[in-house]
């Protein structure tokens, strides 16, 4: 499938519910309130599609892409702290890459899991849970995988407010 076919299929299926679709060269504004206006202007490389969706239809969009369009491979899931919100972006597909971007509130970081659709997403969700503290509802085994044993609770190293303290050496030697 080409980039344009994917974006057309998504637009036909979900219409105005999708906030923004970007394919190579130029972005396209679908709904009025875009999430990230400053990203809008830049051009996108070949074989890349960026879709921004609200949290309510996030799982429906993934289900449509995986089950009907056949993008059943999760390349990665990026989590990103924008200050007030946390962005979660699964990158789907083996040939062209479709990035489904959604934004959740930092005070209540809860999102439904996609592990039931693609079992390979399990480790990616656990990684985001470790590093950013997003809780994936319905994940079968949301335990720690990246941060070491004994890591304190509620400390998330990729959040912007995390500033590691500089330690003092045990003894000055020079």
């Amino acid at each position, binding site marked *: 499938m080409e980039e344009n076919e994917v974006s057309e299929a998504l637009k036909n299926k979900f219409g105005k519910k999708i906030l923004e679709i970007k394919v190579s060269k130029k972005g396209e504004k679908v709904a009025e309130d875009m999430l990230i206006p400053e990203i809008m202007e830049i051009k996108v490389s070949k074989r890349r599609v960026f879709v921004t969706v609200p949290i309510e239809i996030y799982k429906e969009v993934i289900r449509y892409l995986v089950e009907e369009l056949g993008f059943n491979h999760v*390349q*990665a899931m*990026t989590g*990103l702290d924008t200050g007030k919100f946390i962005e979660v972006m699964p990158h789907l597909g083996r040939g062209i890459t479709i990035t489904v971007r959604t934004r959740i509130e930092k005070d209540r970081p809860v999102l439904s899991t996609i592990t039931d659709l693609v079992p390979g997403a399990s*480790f990616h969700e656990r990684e985001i849970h470790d590093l950013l503290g997003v809780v994936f509802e319905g994940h079968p085994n949301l335990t*720690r995988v*990246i941060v070491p044993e004994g890591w304190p609770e509620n400390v998330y190293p990729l959040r912007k407010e995390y500033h590691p303290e500089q330690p003092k050496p045990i003894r000055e030697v020079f």
Partner: protein
Amino acid sequence: MQEEELQKTEKKSAYELFFDIPVGPQHPALKEPAFFKFRVEGERVVGVDVDVSYNHRGIERALEDRNYIQNIYLIERICGICNVAHTLCYAQAVEQLHGKEIPSRANYIRLMVEELARIHSHTLWLGVAAHEIGFDTLFMYVWRDREVVMDLIEMLTGNRVTTAINTIGGVRRDVSDEAKDKVKKGMNILEERLKYYRKVALNDPTVNARCSGVGILKPKDAIRLCAVGPTLRASGVKNDVRRDDPYTLHDEVPFNVITFDTMDVFARVLVRIDETLESVNMVRYCLDHMPNGDVRIKLPLSPPVGEAISRVEAPRGELIHYARSNGTKNPERYKVRTPTFENLPSVSEMLTSKSDYEVNIADIPITLASIDPCFSCTARMEFRDVSKGKTWIWSLKELKAHCSKSRR
């Protein structure tokens, strides 16, 4: 006979007969720390739990505090063996942010060094696999011949392992005509030796006995669990980033995507040997068709606001980097997803007995090694004070102070 039946019924009813064996972090098969908890029923492995948290270095966070030039050297140190793939992926991501193309000669050199690194990685793996199955003669021979490609990489880039050849906007060194001749000679030696190893793998009873029918991963499961790279291709799925999402010059340079359909460790051995032979041909093509011209363009330090996804077929599988820039000299977020991380669910699947085949404890080392795992790929060096719930990172000076203290 009666006893056996009794045992069977007991096994079904008595949960206590399952036994958990901890393997790691000091590992029999791997030189890197990873912890596996195997649930066994006699000699059968019926479940596995993976913990890879021993090597978390916080590189993703550290990348946000450095500028784009400094990050090349940090990215390179994510993984020693795949360093070419990592720097290539990083350079491509930043070039995508800039929206610039690099000169054609630079692309040829990038592709050539990438394929040389693939030869080096696959031959290294072949040696490790031979060692795991107790075939140390093959291990010694393969690593002796690997020196040919290591010397070529040193000649071309200046370093044996951490090559530092790729940079933002091109490559750092040009290739002379004299060097081209030496690479050609080296490729002839390697091709002859690799064909011999292929013959050994196909005919030797040791390899056959230890690898055939071990670590089965069915194509349906491989796709479901998002396997990548040689692990996926050994299950008969024709997928390669170089073909499906061509970068550098992979849409021009001819090559075959190697697949095997026996789905076991044996297939993974043969896929890697045949891929190495393909790489030899690709290096030859690059040497013959390399155009003249510049090898680097200069780009400003700060790319414009934007985001980019860069994909590379590393020796171990698909590698993906995601970059988001905010217009300053430091990236807003940089995400690295390494192939081993993607293959972890698949290796758990390979190590669990099914109704139609069994996994024995003795098969664990070679099955683990068959995905070519690399656990140092994900992230931070730091010190924790558990009682206070605080974490910190040492500066270089403090680390030196600590090291010299412990040396005394």
